[in-house]
Protein backbone atom coordinates (compact mmCIF):
# COMPACT_ATOMS: atom_id res chain seq x y z
CA UNK A 1 0.00 0.00 0.00
CA UNK A 2 1.44 3.32 -1.03
CA UNK A 3 0.22 6.52 0.63
CA UNK A 4 -1.09 9.16 -1.72
CA UNK A 5 0.15 12.71 -1.72
CA UNK A 6 -3.25 13.83 -0.39
CA UNK A 7 -3.05 11.37 2.51
CA UNK A 8 0.37 12.67 3.54
CA UNK A 9 -0.89 16.27 3.35
CA UNK A 10 -3.95 15.33 5.42
CA UNK A 11 -1.77 13.77 8.16
CA UNK A 12 0.59 16.76 8.13
CA UNK A 13 -2.39 19.03 8.57
CA UNK A 14 -3.69 16.96 11.51
CA UNK A 15 -0.22 17.18 13.07
CA UNK A 16 0.04 20.92 12.27
CA UNK A 17 3.34 20.25 10.59
CA UNK A 18 4.48 22.33 7.64
CA UNK A 19 6.34 20.33 4.99
CA UNK A 20 8.38 21.31 1.96
CA UNK A 21 7.69 19.59 -1.35
CA UNK A 22 10.86 17.46 -0.94
CA UNK A 23 9.91 16.46 2.61
CA UNK A 24 6.44 15.52 1.47
CA UNK A 25 7.71 13.18 -1.25
CA UNK A 26 10.36 11.63 1.00
CA UNK A 27 7.85 11.04 3.81
CA UNK A 28 5.39 9.52 1.35
CA UNK A 29 8.07 7.02 0.34
CA UNK A 30 9.37 6.28 3.84
CA UNK A 31 6.01 6.09 5.65
CA UNK A 32 4.61 3.77 2.96
CA UNK A 33 7.61 1.49 3.39
CA UNK A 34 7.35 1.49 7.20
CA UNK A 35 3.58 0.91 7.22
CA UNK A 36 4.00 -1.97 4.79
CA UNK A 37 6.33 -3.62 7.30
CA UNK A 38 3.77 -3.15 10.06
CA UNK A 39 1.28 -5.34 8.20
CA UNK A 40 2.95 -8.27 9.96
CA UNK A 41 0.65 -7.45 12.91
CA UNK A 42 -2.46 -8.31 10.93
CA UNK A 43 -1.36 -11.96 11.01
CA UNK A 44 -1.60 -12.06 14.81
CA UNK A 45 -4.87 -13.38 16.22
CA UNK A 46 -6.00 -10.91 18.87
CA UNK A 47 -9.56 -12.14 19.33
CA UNK A 48 -10.62 -11.49 22.94
CA UNK A 49 -7.23 -9.95 23.78
CA UNK A 50 -7.60 -6.70 25.75
CA UNK A 51 -5.33 -3.76 24.83
CA UNK A 52 -2.45 -2.71 27.11
CA UNK A 53 -2.02 1.04 27.57
CA UNK A 54 0.76 0.79 30.16
CA UNK A 55 2.48 -1.97 32.05
CA UNK A 56 1.99 -1.38 35.78
CA UNK A 57 -1.01 -2.37 37.91
CA UNK A 58 -1.99 1.19 38.88
CA UNK A 59 -5.30 2.77 37.98
CA UNK A 60 -6.96 6.11 38.66
CA UNK A 61 -4.16 7.55 40.75
CA UNK A 62 -5.38 10.44 42.88
CA UNK A 63 -3.75 12.58 45.51
CA UNK A 64 -4.87 14.92 48.25
CA UNK A 65 -5.83 18.38 47.04
CA UNK A 66 -3.21 20.26 49.00
CA UNK A 67 -2.36 23.91 48.57
CA UNK A 68 1.29 24.32 47.61
CA UNK A 69 3.42 27.11 46.23
CA UNK A 70 3.33 27.56 42.45
CA UNK A 71 6.29 28.56 40.35
CA UNK A 72 6.73 32.34 40.20
CA UNK A 73 4.98 33.93 37.21
CA UNK A 74 8.18 35.67 36.13
CA UNK A 75 10.01 32.34 35.82
CA UNK A 76 7.22 30.78 33.79
CA UNK A 77 7.11 33.76 31.44
CA UNK A 78 10.90 33.90 31.12
CA UNK A 79 10.87 31.34 28.28
CA UNK A 80 7.97 32.93 26.37
CA UNK A 81 8.84 33.82 22.76
CA UNK A 82 6.47 36.81 22.99
CA UNK A 83 4.90 38.28 26.08
CA UNK A 84 2.89 41.32 26.98
CA UNK A 85 3.02 42.28 30.63
CA UNK A 86 2.13 39.20 32.59
CA UNK A 87 0.62 37.35 29.62
CA UNK A 88 1.81 35.09 26.79
CA UNK A 89 1.22 36.97 23.57
CA UNK A 90 -0.53 35.01 20.81
CA UNK A 91 -1.70 35.91 17.34
CA UNK A 92 -5.35 36.68 16.65
CA UNK A 93 -7.48 33.53 16.43
CA UNK A 94 -10.46 35.32 14.84
CA UNK A 95 -9.92 37.90 12.17
Amino acid sequence: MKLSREEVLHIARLARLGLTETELERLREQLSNILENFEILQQVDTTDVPPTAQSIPLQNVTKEDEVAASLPQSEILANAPQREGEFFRVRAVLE
Partner: protein
Amino acid sequence: MLTIHEANQLLRNKKLSSLELTKACLERIQQVEPKLHALVTITDELALRQAKKADELIAKGDAHPLTGIPVVIKDNMCTKGVRTTCSSKMLENFIPPYDACVVERLNSCGAVIIGKSNMDEFAMGSSTEHSAFFATQNPWDLSRVPGGSSGGSAVVVAAEETIYALGSDTGGSIRQPAGFCSVTGLKPTYGRVSRYGLVAFASSLDQIGPLTRDVTDCALVMNAIAGFDNRDSTSVPYPTPDYTQCLTNDIKGLRIGIPKEYFVAGMQAEVEKALQAAISKLEELGAKVEWEVSLPHTPHALAVYYIIAPSEASANLARYDGVKYGFSYQKTDNMWEALEKTRQFGFGDEVKRRIMLGTYALSAGYYDAYYLKAQKVRTLIRREFDQAFEKYDALVTPTSPTVPFRIGEKTDDPLQMYLSDVCTLPINIAGLPAISIPAGFADGLPIGMQLIGKPFGEETILKIAYAYEQATEWHKRKPKI
Protein backbone atom coordinates in the same frame (compact mmCIF):
# COMPACT_ATOMS: atom_id res chain seq x y z
CA MET B 1 39.54 5.22 35.73
CA LEU B 2 37.64 5.76 38.98
CA THR B 3 34.27 4.27 39.82
CA ILE B 4 31.78 5.90 42.19
CA HIS B 5 32.69 3.54 45.02
CA GLU B 6 36.43 4.05 44.51
CA ALA B 7 36.08 7.85 44.33
CA ASN B 8 33.86 7.76 47.40
CA GLN B 9 36.59 5.92 49.36
CA LEU B 10 39.22 8.47 48.31
CA LEU B 11 36.93 11.38 49.22
CA ARG B 12 36.09 9.95 52.63
CA ASN B 13 39.73 9.21 53.40
CA LYS B 14 40.65 12.77 52.35
CA LYS B 15 43.03 11.45 49.71
CA LEU B 16 41.12 13.42 47.11
CA SER B 17 38.77 16.41 47.24
CA SER B 18 35.63 16.79 45.17
CA LEU B 19 37.10 19.97 43.75
CA GLU B 20 40.18 18.08 42.52
CA LEU B 21 38.07 15.29 41.08
CA THR B 22 35.73 17.76 39.39
CA LYS B 23 38.61 19.74 37.90
CA ALA B 24 40.17 16.52 36.62
CA CYS B 25 36.93 15.63 34.84
CA LEU B 26 36.60 19.15 33.40
CA GLU B 27 40.17 18.93 32.09
CA ARG B 28 39.45 15.56 30.53
CA ILE B 29 36.36 17.09 28.91
CA GLN B 30 38.49 19.86 27.37
CA GLN B 31 40.93 17.25 26.11
CA VAL B 32 38.57 14.74 24.46
CA GLU B 33 35.39 16.68 23.59
CA PRO B 34 36.83 18.06 20.33
CA LYS B 35 36.94 14.43 19.15
CA LEU B 36 33.81 12.99 20.77
CA HIS B 37 31.16 15.76 20.88
CA ALA B 38 29.26 14.06 23.69
CA LEU B 39 28.19 17.17 25.61
CA VAL B 40 25.71 19.86 24.60
CA THR B 41 26.43 22.01 27.66
CA ILE B 42 29.37 21.96 30.06
CA THR B 43 28.22 23.28 33.44
CA ASP B 44 31.67 24.08 34.84
CA GLU B 45 30.63 26.97 37.09
CA LEU B 46 27.79 24.99 38.63
CA ALA B 47 30.06 21.96 39.03
CA LEU B 48 32.80 23.89 40.84
CA ARG B 49 30.21 25.47 43.16
CA GLN B 50 28.67 22.07 43.92
CA ALA B 51 32.12 20.52 44.43
CA LYS B 52 33.03 23.12 47.06
CA LYS B 53 29.75 22.45 48.84
CA ALA B 54 30.36 18.71 48.64
CA ASP B 55 33.80 19.10 50.20
CA GLU B 56 32.18 20.94 53.11
CA LEU B 57 29.66 18.13 53.55
CA ILE B 58 32.44 15.54 53.50
CA ALA B 59 34.48 17.55 56.04
CA LYS B 60 31.44 17.57 58.34
CA GLY B 61 31.07 13.80 57.93
CA ASP B 62 27.72 14.17 56.16
CA ALA B 63 28.69 12.39 52.96
CA HIS B 64 26.38 10.18 50.92
CA PRO B 65 28.00 7.64 48.53
CA LEU B 66 27.36 10.10 45.65
CA THR B 67 28.52 13.25 47.45
CA GLY B 68 31.11 15.16 45.48
CA ILE B 69 31.06 12.75 42.52
CA PRO B 70 30.73 14.27 39.03
CA VAL B 71 27.70 13.26 36.95
CA VAL B 72 26.45 14.08 33.46
CA ILE B 73 22.71 14.37 32.86
CA LYS B 74 21.10 13.54 29.52
CA ASP B 75 19.79 16.76 28.02
CA ASN B 76 16.13 15.72 28.23
CA MET B 77 16.01 16.00 32.02
CA CYS B 78 15.16 19.42 33.41
CA THR B 79 17.90 21.22 35.32
CA LYS B 80 16.76 24.41 36.99
CA GLY B 81 18.50 27.42 35.46
CA VAL B 82 20.53 25.22 33.09
CA ARG B 83 19.58 25.00 29.40
CA THR B 84 17.78 21.74 28.59
CA THR B 85 17.62 21.26 24.84
CA CYS B 86 16.65 17.64 24.04
CA SER B 87 19.24 18.22 21.28
CA SER B 88 16.48 20.02 19.39
CA LYS B 89 16.31 23.41 17.74
CA MET B 90 12.85 23.57 19.32
CA LEU B 91 14.33 23.78 22.84
CA GLU B 92 17.74 25.26 21.99
CA ASN B 93 17.27 28.14 24.41
CA PHE B 94 14.91 26.57 26.94
CA ILE B 95 15.87 27.20 30.58
CA PRO B 96 13.72 25.05 32.90
CA PRO B 97 12.31 26.78 35.99
CA TYR B 98 12.50 23.52 37.96
CA ASP B 99 14.57 20.36 38.42
CA ALA B 100 13.51 16.87 37.33
CA CYS B 101 12.86 14.56 40.29
CA VAL B 102 16.06 12.59 39.59
CA VAL B 103 18.10 15.81 39.48
CA GLU B 104 16.57 16.92 42.78
CA ARG B 105 17.47 13.58 44.31
CA LEU B 106 21.06 13.66 43.05
CA ASN B 107 21.44 17.24 44.26
CA SER B 108 20.16 16.30 47.69
CA CYS B 109 22.94 13.65 47.79
CA GLY B 110 25.52 16.37 47.08
CA ALA B 111 26.15 15.39 43.46
CA VAL B 112 28.29 17.52 41.13
CA ILE B 113 26.63 18.11 37.75
CA ILE B 114 29.33 18.73 35.15
CA GLY B 115 27.32 18.70 31.94
CA LYS B 116 24.28 17.85 29.83
CA SER B 117 24.80 15.16 27.23
CA ASN B 118 24.02 15.01 23.54
CA MET B 119 21.24 12.72 22.34
CA ASP B 120 19.06 11.94 19.37
CA GLU B 121 16.54 14.76 19.15
CA PHE B 122 13.76 14.18 21.70
CA ALA B 123 15.35 10.74 22.32
CA MET B 124 14.22 9.50 18.89
CA GLY B 125 17.04 7.49 17.40
CA SER B 126 19.65 4.80 17.93
CA SER B 127 22.89 6.53 16.99
CA THR B 128 22.93 10.13 18.38
CA GLU B 129 23.21 11.25 14.74
CA HIS B 130 19.73 12.76 14.97
CA SER B 131 20.92 15.53 17.30
CA ALA B 132 20.08 18.95 15.84
CA PHE B 133 23.52 20.19 16.94
CA PHE B 134 26.16 17.56 16.09
CA ALA B 135 26.74 13.81 15.97
CA THR B 136 28.62 12.11 18.80
CA GLN B 137 31.52 9.75 18.05
CA ASN B 138 32.19 6.33 19.58
CA PRO B 139 35.39 6.49 21.69
CA TRP B 140 36.33 2.93 20.60
CA ASP B 141 36.33 3.98 16.92
CA LEU B 142 35.69 7.60 16.01
CA SER B 143 34.23 6.62 12.62
CA ARG B 144 31.39 4.75 14.36
CA VAL B 145 28.26 5.76 16.25
CA PRO B 146 28.03 5.49 20.04
CA GLY B 147 24.45 4.22 19.85
CA GLY B 148 21.48 6.21 21.02
CA SER B 149 19.54 7.95 22.05
CA SER B 150 21.62 8.35 25.27
CA GLY B 151 24.82 8.23 23.17
CA GLY B 152 26.35 11.27 24.88
CA SER B 153 25.79 9.78 28.34
CA ALA B 154 27.40 6.45 27.36
CA VAL B 155 30.40 8.19 25.75
CA VAL B 156 31.19 10.46 28.71
CA VAL B 157 31.32 7.41 30.99
CA ALA B 158 33.43 5.32 28.57
CA ALA B 159 35.80 8.22 27.85
CA GLU B 160 36.23 9.17 31.52
CA GLU B 161 34.75 12.64 31.11
CA THR B 162 32.62 11.91 34.18
CA ILE B 163 32.28 9.18 36.80
CA TYR B 164 28.70 8.30 35.85
CA ALA B 165 25.71 9.60 33.90
CA LEU B 166 21.94 9.44 33.69
CA GLY B 167 20.14 8.38 30.54
CA SER B 168 16.58 7.64 29.53
CA ASP B 169 15.33 4.52 27.79
CA THR B 170 12.16 4.29 25.69
CA GLY B 171 13.15 1.39 23.42
CA GLY B 172 16.77 0.74 24.32
CA SER B 173 18.18 4.25 24.63
CA ILE B 174 20.25 3.44 27.75
CA ARG B 175 21.14 -0.18 27.02
CA GLN B 176 22.03 -0.02 23.32
CA PRO B 177 24.58 2.86 23.75
CA ALA B 178 25.88 1.19 26.94
CA GLY B 179 26.50 -1.93 24.83
CA PHE B 180 28.09 0.08 21.99
CA CYS B 181 30.44 1.92 24.39
CA SER B 182 31.23 -0.95 26.80
CA VAL B 183 29.68 0.57 29.92
CA THR B 184 26.95 -0.64 32.27
CA GLY B 185 23.43 0.69 31.66
CA LEU B 186 20.22 -0.16 33.50
CA LYS B 187 16.66 0.50 32.43
CA PRO B 188 14.60 0.09 35.59
CA THR B 189 11.07 -1.34 35.68
CA TYR B 190 8.50 1.12 34.35
CA GLY B 191 7.31 3.08 37.40
CA ARG B 192 10.47 2.54 39.48
CA VAL B 193 12.06 5.93 38.81
CA SER B 194 10.01 9.13 38.62
CA ARG B 195 9.64 10.69 35.17
CA TYR B 196 8.78 14.09 36.65
CA GLY B 197 10.85 16.63 34.72
CA LEU B 198 11.87 14.18 31.98
CA VAL B 199 10.79 15.69 28.66
CA ALA B 200 8.11 13.25 27.49
CA PHE B 201 8.67 11.12 24.38
CA ALA B 202 6.45 8.02 24.79
CA SER B 203 4.98 8.20 28.26
CA SER B 204 4.05 4.53 28.66
CA LEU B 205 7.58 3.42 27.74
CA ASP B 206 10.01 6.12 29.02
CA GLN B 207 12.16 5.33 32.04
CA ILE B 208 15.28 6.99 33.51
CA GLY B 209 18.32 4.97 34.56
CA PRO B 210 22.07 5.02 35.26
CA LEU B 211 25.08 4.56 32.95
CA THR B 212 28.13 3.58 35.00
CA ARG B 213 31.55 1.88 34.88
CA ASP B 214 30.45 -1.13 36.89
CA VAL B 215 27.48 -2.86 38.48
CA THR B 216 28.19 -1.62 42.02
CA ASP B 217 27.98 1.96 40.76
CA CYS B 218 24.72 1.15 39.02
CA ALA B 219 23.25 -0.07 42.32
CA LEU B 220 24.51 3.03 44.14
CA VAL B 221 22.85 5.37 41.63
CA MET B 222 19.61 3.37 41.79
CA ASN B 223 19.63 3.80 45.59
CA ALA B 224 19.61 7.55 45.01
CA ILE B 225 17.08 7.88 42.18
CA ALA B 226 14.56 5.04 42.64
CA GLY B 227 11.39 5.37 44.65
CA PHE B 228 7.93 6.87 44.78
CA ASP B 229 7.25 10.45 43.70
CA ASN B 230 3.68 11.72 43.74
CA ARG B 231 4.33 14.14 40.87
CA ASP B 232 4.53 11.22 38.43
CA SER B 233 1.24 9.33 38.57
CA THR B 234 2.90 6.23 37.09
CA SER B 235 5.49 6.16 39.87
CA VAL B 236 4.72 3.10 42.03
CA PRO B 237 4.33 3.39 45.82
CA TYR B 238 6.43 0.28 46.50
CA PRO B 239 9.32 0.18 48.98
CA THR B 240 12.78 0.52 47.42
CA PRO B 241 15.48 -1.93 48.46
CA ASP B 242 19.16 -1.18 49.06
CA TYR B 243 20.34 -2.33 45.66
CA THR B 244 23.90 -2.96 46.86
CA GLN B 245 22.68 -5.75 49.17
CA CYS B 246 22.10 -8.15 46.27
CA LEU B 247 25.65 -7.82 44.94
CA THR B 248 27.01 -11.19 46.02
CA ASN B 249 28.88 -13.63 43.85
CA ASP B 250 26.43 -16.40 44.50
CA ILE B 251 24.23 -17.15 41.51
CA LYS B 252 24.18 -20.92 42.03
CA GLY B 253 20.87 -22.43 41.02
CA LEU B 254 19.47 -19.24 39.47
CA ARG B 255 17.46 -20.18 36.40
CA ILE B 256 18.41 -18.30 33.24
CA GLY B 257 16.49 -18.59 29.97
CA ILE B 258 17.90 -17.80 26.53
CA PRO B 259 15.08 -16.72 24.17
CA LYS B 260 16.05 -18.16 20.79
CA GLU B 261 14.15 -15.50 18.80
CA TYR B 262 16.80 -12.95 19.87
CA PHE B 263 19.52 -14.92 18.07
CA VAL B 264 18.19 -14.77 14.53
CA ALA B 265 18.10 -12.66 11.38
CA GLY B 266 20.67 -9.91 11.03
CA MET B 267 22.81 -10.95 13.99
CA GLN B 268 26.56 -10.71 13.47
CA ALA B 269 28.45 -13.96 13.99
CA GLU B 270 30.94 -12.28 16.36
CA VAL B 271 28.11 -11.04 18.58
CA GLU B 272 26.53 -14.48 18.70
CA LYS B 273 29.88 -16.06 19.55
CA ALA B 274 30.59 -13.56 22.33
CA LEU B 275 27.14 -14.10 23.81
CA GLN B 276 27.50 -17.85 23.78
CA ALA B 277 30.79 -17.54 25.63
CA ALA B 278 29.25 -15.11 28.15
CA ILE B 279 26.30 -17.40 28.79
CA SER B 280 28.63 -20.38 29.23
CA LYS B 281 30.44 -18.27 31.83
CA LEU B 282 27.17 -17.81 33.71
CA GLU B 283 26.70 -21.57 33.58
CA GLU B 284 30.21 -22.04 34.95
CA LEU B 285 29.32 -19.71 37.81
CA GLY B 286 26.48 -22.00 38.79
CA ALA B 287 23.44 -20.64 36.95
CA LYS B 288 21.07 -23.18 35.42
CA VAL B 289 20.83 -22.18 31.76
CA GLU B 290 18.03 -23.24 29.43
CA TRP B 291 19.21 -22.53 25.88
CA GLU B 292 15.99 -23.06 23.97
CA VAL B 293 13.36 -20.75 25.42
CA SER B 294 10.79 -19.46 22.94
CA LEU B 295 9.03 -16.07 22.97
CA PRO B 296 7.14 -16.45 19.68
CA HIS B 297 5.73 -12.90 19.54
CA THR B 298 9.23 -11.35 19.52
CA PRO B 299 9.18 -10.71 15.73
CA HIS B 300 6.08 -8.52 16.23
CA ALA B 301 7.67 -6.26 18.83
CA LEU B 302 9.29 -3.89 16.33
CA ALA B 303 5.96 -3.04 14.68
CA VAL B 304 4.19 -2.76 18.05
CA TYR B 305 6.87 -0.38 19.29
CA TYR B 306 7.00 1.76 16.16
CA ILE B 307 3.24 2.24 16.29
CA ILE B 308 2.86 2.88 20.03
CA ALA B 309 5.95 5.06 20.58
CA PRO B 310 5.30 7.45 17.66
CA SER B 311 1.58 7.62 18.56
CA GLU B 312 2.39 8.72 22.09
CA ALA B 313 5.10 11.02 20.74
CA SER B 314 2.71 12.71 18.32
CA ALA B 315 0.43 13.55 21.26
CA ASN B 316 3.26 14.60 23.60
CA LEU B 317 4.94 16.80 21.00
CA ALA B 318 1.69 18.62 20.19
CA ARG B 319 2.65 20.98 23.03
CA TYR B 320 5.40 22.61 20.96
CA ASP B 321 3.38 25.47 19.54
CA GLY B 322 5.85 28.35 19.84
CA VAL B 323 3.68 30.15 22.40
CA LYS B 324 4.77 29.25 25.94
CA TYR B 325 8.42 28.36 25.35
CA GLY B 326 10.73 27.09 22.65
CA PHE B 327 11.37 28.03 19.04
CA SER B 328 8.72 30.28 17.54
CA TYR B 329 8.30 31.28 13.91
CA GLN B 330 7.72 35.02 13.86
CA LYS B 331 7.47 36.08 10.23
CA THR B 332 3.69 35.90 9.94
CA ASP B 333 0.53 37.23 11.56
CA ASN B 334 -1.45 34.13 10.73
CA MET B 335 -1.87 31.83 13.73
CA TRP B 336 -2.05 28.55 11.78
CA GLU B 337 0.88 29.41 9.57
CA ALA B 338 2.94 30.36 12.64
CA LEU B 339 2.10 27.02 14.28
CA GLU B 340 2.92 24.94 11.20
CA LYS B 341 6.16 26.79 10.45
CA THR B 342 7.25 26.69 14.11
CA ARG B 343 7.00 22.91 13.96
CA GLN B 344 8.43 22.66 10.44
CA PHE B 345 11.61 24.56 11.33
CA GLY B 346 11.83 23.55 15.02
CA PHE B 347 11.78 19.77 14.55
CA GLY B 348 14.33 17.62 12.71
CA ASP B 349 13.63 14.89 10.13
CA GLU B 350 13.35 11.89 12.48
CA VAL B 351 11.02 13.74 14.87
CA LYS B 352 8.81 14.81 11.97
CA ARG B 353 8.78 11.26 10.63
CA ARG B 354 7.60 9.90 13.98
CA ILE B 355 5.00 12.62 14.47
CA MET B 356 3.61 11.77 11.03
CA LEU B 357 3.69 8.03 11.71
CA GLY B 358 1.97 8.44 15.08
CA THR B 359 -0.61 10.86 13.77
CA TYR B 360 -1.42 8.41 10.99
CA ALA B 361 -1.77 5.46 13.41
CA LEU B 362 -4.14 7.48 15.60
CA SER B 363 -6.18 9.05 12.81
CA ALA B 364 -9.80 8.26 12.01
CA GLY B 365 -10.10 5.05 10.02
CA TYR B 366 -6.66 3.71 11.02
CA TYR B 367 -6.85 3.73 14.83
CA ASP B 368 -8.25 0.17 15.09
CA ALA B 369 -5.94 -1.33 12.47
CA TYR B 370 -2.76 0.21 13.88
CA TYR B 371 -2.87 1.68 17.38
CA LEU B 372 -5.48 -0.61 18.95
CA LYS B 373 -4.02 -3.66 17.20
CA ALA B 374 -0.55 -2.77 18.51
CA GLN B 375 -1.89 -2.39 22.06
CA LYS B 376 -3.45 -5.86 21.83
CA VAL B 377 -0.26 -7.45 20.58
CA ARG B 378 1.45 -5.58 23.41
CA THR B 379 -0.71 -7.62 25.80
CA LEU B 380 0.43 -10.85 24.11
CA ILE B 381 4.09 -9.86 24.41
CA ARG B 382 3.65 -9.08 28.12
CA ARG B 383 1.88 -12.38 28.75
CA GLU B 384 4.69 -14.24 27.04
CA PHE B 385 7.26 -12.65 29.36
CA ASP B 386 5.03 -13.36 32.40
CA GLN B 387 4.91 -17.02 31.43
CA ALA B 388 8.68 -17.17 30.90
CA PHE B 389 9.28 -15.67 34.33
CA GLU B 390 7.28 -18.44 35.95
CA LYS B 391 10.14 -20.71 34.90
CA TYR B 392 13.18 -18.41 34.86
CA ASP B 393 14.68 -15.81 37.19
CA ALA B 394 16.18 -13.88 34.28
CA LEU B 395 16.45 -13.94 30.49
CA VAL B 396 19.69 -13.23 28.64
CA THR B 397 20.08 -11.80 25.13
CA PRO B 398 22.54 -9.66 23.19
CA THR B 399 21.95 -5.94 23.75
CA SER B 400 22.13 -5.28 20.01
CA PRO B 401 22.46 -7.67 17.05
CA THR B 402 25.58 -5.86 15.82
CA VAL B 403 28.68 -4.03 16.99
CA PRO B 404 28.59 -0.21 16.60
CA PHE B 405 27.87 0.71 12.98
CA ARG B 406 29.53 3.44 10.92
CA ILE B 407 28.44 7.06 11.13
CA GLY B 408 26.07 7.71 8.23
CA GLU B 409 25.50 4.01 7.54
CA LYS B 410 21.80 3.97 8.49
CA THR B 411 20.67 7.58 8.42
CA ASP B 412 19.00 7.27 5.01
CA ASP B 413 17.10 4.11 5.90
CA PRO B 414 14.84 4.57 8.96
CA LEU B 415 13.82 0.90 9.09
CA GLN B 416 17.44 -0.28 9.24
CA MET B 417 18.05 2.19 12.07
CA TYR B 418 14.95 0.92 13.92
CA LEU B 419 16.26 -2.67 13.69
CA SER B 420 19.23 -1.70 15.85
CA ASP B 421 16.86 -1.76 18.86
CA VAL B 422 15.26 -5.07 18.03
CA CYS B 423 16.64 -6.78 21.17
CA THR B 424 15.86 -3.96 23.58
CA LEU B 425 12.45 -2.59 22.65
CA PRO B 426 10.35 -5.64 23.64
CA ILE B 427 11.47 -4.96 27.23
CA ASN B 428 9.94 -1.45 27.21
CA ILE B 429 6.75 -2.83 25.69
CA ALA B 430 6.46 -5.18 28.68
CA GLY B 431 7.74 -2.56 31.19
CA LEU B 432 10.49 -4.88 32.51
CA PRO B 433 13.88 -4.02 34.02
CA ALA B 434 16.97 -4.86 31.94
CA ILE B 435 20.67 -4.16 32.19
CA SER B 436 23.39 -4.13 29.54
CA ILE B 437 26.91 -5.05 30.65
CA PRO B 438 30.19 -5.39 28.73
CA ALA B 439 30.54 -8.95 27.40
CA GLY B 440 33.35 -8.89 24.90
CA PHE B 441 34.82 -7.25 21.81
CA ALA B 442 35.00 -8.02 18.11
CA ASP B 443 37.97 -6.36 16.38
CA GLY B 444 38.15 -3.85 19.21
CA LEU B 445 34.44 -2.98 19.05
CA PRO B 446 32.27 -3.52 22.16
CA ILE B 447 29.59 -6.19 22.56
CA GLY B 448 26.90 -5.92 25.24
CA MET B 449 24.94 -8.61 27.07
CA GLN B 450 21.39 -7.84 28.15
CA LEU B 451 19.91 -9.38 31.31
CA ILE B 452 16.13 -9.06 31.61
CA GLY B 453 14.31 -9.36 34.94
CA LYS B 454 10.72 -9.69 36.10
CA PRO B 455 8.82 -6.53 37.07
CA PHE B 456 10.60 -4.88 40.03
CA GLY B 457 13.21 -7.65 39.85
CA GLU B 458 16.18 -5.29 39.42
CA GLU B 459 18.02 -7.05 42.25
CA THR B 460 18.15 -10.40 40.45
CA ILE B 461 19.65 -8.97 37.24
CA LEU B 462 22.08 -6.78 39.22
CA LYS B 463 23.19 -9.90 41.11
CA ILE B 464 23.83 -11.90 37.93
CA ALA B 465 25.50 -8.91 36.27
CA TYR B 466 27.74 -8.48 39.31
CA ALA B 467 28.77 -12.14 39.40
CA TYR B 468 29.62 -12.03 35.66
CA GLU B 469 31.53 -8.79 36.06
CA GLN B 470 33.59 -10.14 38.97
CA ALA B 471 34.54 -13.15 36.85
CA THR B 472 35.53 -11.15 33.74
CA GLU B 473 37.68 -8.18 32.80
CA TRP B 474 35.71 -6.61 29.91
CA HIS B 475 34.48 -3.68 32.00
CA LYS B 476 38.06 -2.67 32.82
CA ARG B 477 39.11 -2.11 29.21
CA LYS B 478 39.52 1.52 28.20
CA PRO B 479 39.25 3.07 24.74
CA LYS B 480 42.34 4.84 23.36
CA ILE B 481 41.15 8.23 22.24
